[in-house]
């Protein structure tokens, strides 16, 4: 006996909620045979600006959460993903991956979350210093999150790539607005469901689906975004991102990697990229 499947409506993920785009627009994603997989929300610049306001409001309290707490939340994401891995594998396959690659990608994605969960209360020690100044002062440098980070996720390996850039940013206390892979956006929104059930406070990770050509300029020029990460190889886009980033001296980070399964793609140095060094002085003489 046949049964009609229930299809999922893929929406945006902003502030811990799943709104449709304010613009009411959509774009279609088809499988390799041309059958409709989903009508995705075509996020607008206004959606991005709304997400920035929410990410900014969420940033202070997320940064103030204890390192241990952040680590446990990242680990919780991994737990949730592990439990739903079959769904992600089938979504990746639907988007054109081979079964073997899809399986590897989901496994690596889960392990990557665990990897960064473990760094949550360690990277600070790795990047900090007590500085032996010549005067009678106690002087130390530590790292703090840069703030709100806009991320243009990789086109390929849409789940592993996204997690590989989001995890080091959020474990470091930043909040992010991610533009998912344009051609393979399904897993990004399903990942939002995982985030939503993983104790990640609303607004820490916000995920949009849409077009780079429409949104990249706004992401790079927004005056309340502190850093922008672009994953890809489009040199013209990198140039225009850097130019717009200069408006408020945004930190630009470019990842030109093609394969996010590489072990070089997990490193505390990726956490460091969205950290700022703060140096504090205090006299020791009384």
């Amino acid at each position: 006996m046949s049964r009609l499947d229930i299809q999922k409506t893929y929406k945006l993920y902003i502030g811990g909620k799943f709104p449709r785009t304010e613009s009411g627009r959509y774009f279609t994603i088809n499988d390799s045979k041309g059958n409709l997989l989903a009508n995705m929300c075509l996020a607008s610049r206004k959606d991005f600006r709304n997400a920035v306001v929410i990410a900014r409001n969420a940033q202070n309290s997320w940064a103030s959460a204890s390192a241990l707490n952040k680590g446990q939340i990242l680990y919780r994401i991994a737990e949730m993903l592990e439990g739903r891995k079959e769904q992600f594998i089938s979504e990746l396959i639907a988007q054109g991956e081979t079964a073997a690659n899809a399986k590897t990608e989901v496994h690596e994605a889960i392990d990557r979350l665990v990897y960064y969960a473990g760094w949550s209360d360690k990277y600070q020690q790795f990047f900090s210093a007590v500085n032996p100044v010549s005067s009678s002062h106690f002087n130390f440098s530590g790292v703090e999150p840069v703030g709100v980070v806009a991320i243009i996720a990789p086109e390929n390996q849409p789940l592993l790539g996204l997690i590989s850039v989001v995890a080091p940013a959020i474990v470091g206390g930043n909040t992010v607005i991610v533009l998912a892979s344009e051609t393979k956006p399904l897993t990004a929104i399903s990942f939002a469901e995982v985030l939503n059930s993983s104790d990640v406070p609303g607004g820490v990770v916000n995920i949009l689906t849409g077009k780079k050509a429409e949104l990249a300029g706004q992401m790079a020029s927004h005056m309340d975004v502190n850093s922008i990460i672009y994953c890809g190889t489009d040199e013209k886009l990198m140039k225009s991102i850097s130019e717009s980033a200069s408006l408020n001296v945004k930190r630009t980070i470019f990842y030109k990697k093609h394969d996010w399964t590489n072990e070089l793609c997990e490193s505390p140095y990726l956490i460091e990229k969205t950290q700022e060094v703060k140096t504090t002085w205090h006299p020791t003489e009384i």
Partner: protein
Amino acid sequence: MQKNKDNSMFKASWTYNEAPESTDHIQIKKKYDLYIDGKFSKPIKGKYFDTLNPSTNEKIASVAEATSEDVDAAVQAAKKAFESWSKLTGKERGKYIFRIARLIQERAREFAVIESLDGGKPIRESRDIDIPLAANHFFYYAGWADKLAYAFPNRNPKPIGVVGQIIPWNFPLLMAAWKLAPALATGNTVVLKPAETTSLTALKLAEIIHESGIPKGVVNIVTGAGETGAAIVNHPDVGKIAFTGSTNVGKYIQKATAGTHKKLTLELGGKGANIIFEDAAIDQAVEGIINAIFFNQGHVCCAGSRLFVQESVADIVIDKLKNRMETLIIGNPLDKNTDIGAINSKKQLQTIENYIKIGLNEGGEIYQPDCNLPKNGNWCAPTLFINVSQSHRIVQEEIFGPVLTIQTFRTINEVVEKANNTPYGLSAGVWTQNGAKMFHLTQKLNAGVIWGNTFNKFDATSPFGGTKESGFGREGGLHGLKPYVKFD
């Protein structure tokens, strides 16, 4: 007269005899050429400009103006030198840098006098701060040259290549040291441009670098103004730009280097908050306020130019501050009594005077001590503005002069919000005797450098640099190596 009635007693109690530092032992040439490829050479277009003593506006010397042709020659020399310099062992590289540190120490007095002559800063500051810190910086990074593997665990740091460095006029030799020392220790070669109003100590440093025997082309020093800097920024063979200066120029450089794969670090402007709580040691805090804003005539990117005083102690702090300002000695930079020297240039004086006008027009209440400013040269009395708010331009914009704005606050959350409400994020100061309050504030303030119960302290081992529109990258300490290396 009424306003100074109480304060004049402070002035009357103190008289000083002049104590000028002698200029007999210094050597200044009439004309300075460019230092390119180990030689002092005339600029290709043959143009020179005057460098003036800002305390008299008399000419000190002629300085070569490097055009894009000279910059190209310097970059080519640096590119050639990079081949062997980057292959030299760290130990040997370090030894050259140690030598430079020692040579600066040996000629420290000469450097201090020239720094004050050419830049206008009090001799006490150039003698006790600028020059020793510059030497220390070379000494510190010299020791890193053969230890870089320990700075970046699990990575393989490599030099970038030719580094273009553009430095400001407020700490001329010190900024040259901050730029050169880590770049050389990591195996890069350099084209450095000092600011056009303060080229002399960089050119004296070129003499020292020459004497150190460092291979030709490793350090090239080209003098000139903005166009010379632009030629460095836009040169295709430069792999990294390090810039210290205004936020506007920094943004221009970030834009100009877009799409070029040049690495970039920017140390830009600031509008530092200096926060005084009611439980602070008030007299120490007043000294701290003075040092935060009047150090180096306020020509300090990390100056504490926005004072926030808790309402309950505002009257007493402002009174004490005014009294203290009456005792400040403004005048000859070479006089060892001088607290506040000359404004670096006519242009900068106009900028500051313009901001003072803006402050008055926006309704701020001004206070300046009753002091006699010298007739010639560029001078500005130390200035306070009270009755100002967050929206005043003098509260929002960097003035880069001895002008302090004073606001009051009641609660911690209020002052944190006000202090962070600026596009800048370079420095902040906090004054309280309460430990928990101190650490709460140092955590909440968004700035790269925080001074607790002190201000404007610097050290070669201490990373310095900003957040937000104050730029990115750190100078000093272990963290100061990173901008000058690349990884596989």
